């Protein structure tokens, strides 16, 4: 089974076509980069995939569930993390795990043993009783990722997860994504850091609501005769007719 399967997926708001017939598949355990300039249609596409927004037309399955009919099943089987909001700042890290574990219907016993494991894996034993708002951003992001994968989802959607942190924290965060992939969790990631695009198994680049490129980073660089993903991205983004307005 594919983690994500999308054919001709389209979303129109009145006269405006935000997402224009996108077609792609994501394998189970893959790290898939979803790139595009601001306004290219990434957020709209992602909201449809998460079961938060009904498509205008097209076909789509996420974790094996239909994105029109089975949106609640989708929500149960995915994790979501964004830079803007993912944790309750006035709760401790432990309480955040209890809350999210509870929401996803995990038993007390499961929550307890998983929490222990997460703190051990992350080396954050000392911080477990601290309020989330007092944690440094790099640690917050790690806890956030752990929360979003706490219920062992099939896919985790990561919306610009690493903004602002130091280069080492950014890398250890990606090591968490790799580790999750080793356990079969699929990651669907948006980012503005082009070096992070290279950490993905495959990348799609959206321009004006359409997917204009989709391949492994090294194939894309070859195709565009570029040294870096930065150059590939610029070559495509330059074609954009609509701006982020």
């Amino acid at each position, binding site marked *: 089974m594919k983690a994500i399967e999308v054919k001709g997926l389209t979303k129109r708001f009145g006269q405006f076509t935000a997402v224009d017939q996108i077609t792609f598949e994501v394998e189970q355990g893959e790290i898939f980069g979803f790139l595009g*300039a*601001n306004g290219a249609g990434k957020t709209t596409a992602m909201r449809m995939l998460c079961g938060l927004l009904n498509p205008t037309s097209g076909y789509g399955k996420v974790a094996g569930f239909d994105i029109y009919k089975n949106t609640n099943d989708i929500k149960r089987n995915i994790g979501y993390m964004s830079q803007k909001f993912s944790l309750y700042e006035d709760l401790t890290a432990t309480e955040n795990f209890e809350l999210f574990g509870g929401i996803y219907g995990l038993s007390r016993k499961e929550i307890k043993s998983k929490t222990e494991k997460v703190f051990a894996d992350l080396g954050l034993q000392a911080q477990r009783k601290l309020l989330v708002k007092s944690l440094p951003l790099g640690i917050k992001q790690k806890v956030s990722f752990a929360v979003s994968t706490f219920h062992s989802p099939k896919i985790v959607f990561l919306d610009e997860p690493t903004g602002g942190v130091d280069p080492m924290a950014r890398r250890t965060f990606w090591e968490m994504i790799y580790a999750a*992939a080793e356990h079969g969790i699929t990651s669907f990631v948006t980012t*503005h*850091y*082009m070096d992070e695009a290279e950490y993905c198994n495959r990348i799609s680049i959206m321009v004006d609501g359409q997917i204009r490129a989709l391949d492994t980073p090294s194939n894309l660089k070859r195709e565009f005769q570029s040294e870096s993903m930065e150059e590939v991205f610029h070559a495509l983004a330059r074609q*954009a007719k609509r701006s*982020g307005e």
Partner: protein
Amino acid sequence: MKPAILIDKITKTYPGKQAVMALDNVSLQIGEGELFGLIGPDGAGKTSLFRILTTLLLADSGSAMVEGLDVVKDFRKIRDQIGYMPGKFSLYPDLTVEENLRFFADVFNTTVEANYESIKDIYVQIEPFKKRRAGKLSGGMKQKLALCCALIHKPTVLFLDEPTTGVDPVSRKEFWEMLRKLKEQGITIFVSTPYMDEAALCDRIALIQSGKILSVDTPRDVVEAFPYQLYAVRADNNYRLLTHLKRQENVELAYISGEFLHLIFKKEGFRIDFPYLEMKPIKPTIEDCFIQLMNR
């Protein structure tokens, strides 16, 4: 080089249950007409330093001068001479593009017409939207308007606090092209960013982490000062390779970087046993330098 900004042993602590030392004995000199980048992650102390230099925050100790004026004693004079674009969008969202610009011109006792030349290149890009409310602009356009507002009184020193954070790579590139043009007009520009790849676009940079300056130099010399041979390695599963490398005694540091892993040995002359390993010596980037300095 005549300094436009002189920072001498500035320290700033925010008290509280978990007191934070935002700036720890920071000293820097920024020359007239220089495009100087302050580079570091969130929480490094960048905004605190900007607020002290723009006379909005008092340091615990140390002193600073902007255009020869003291940031404490001469704060009023400084405010007339500098332009400041805070990290958070700080224009009036309910005013239109042109109303915002006119408002800032008024506040500084000048007119948009009198100084139009100095903002023209940037303003023409947002002029088609001049009747739109600032709150309804896209990120890239807000940023251009904020820059116009910071320039409307012809400042000699420009402070830009993370102007490109959260902006996509295309708009970021455009923004840096605008800065290069402003520099040609002779304006001193002090800009902060968490994006290490933007360092190369500055005349000189300071790397900052946890309130301390790690290094100050031209981007090229920061890279030249890297004390190790850096290697790029890869295999068909980089994550497993990384796990393997981290267990090796002779590995000083290993981390992911693009499609490769970057690797520093404690001592040269060791080989790594791993299937399908590809390995080559490479030149470090600013980001490699930052990582090495913060792990020191």
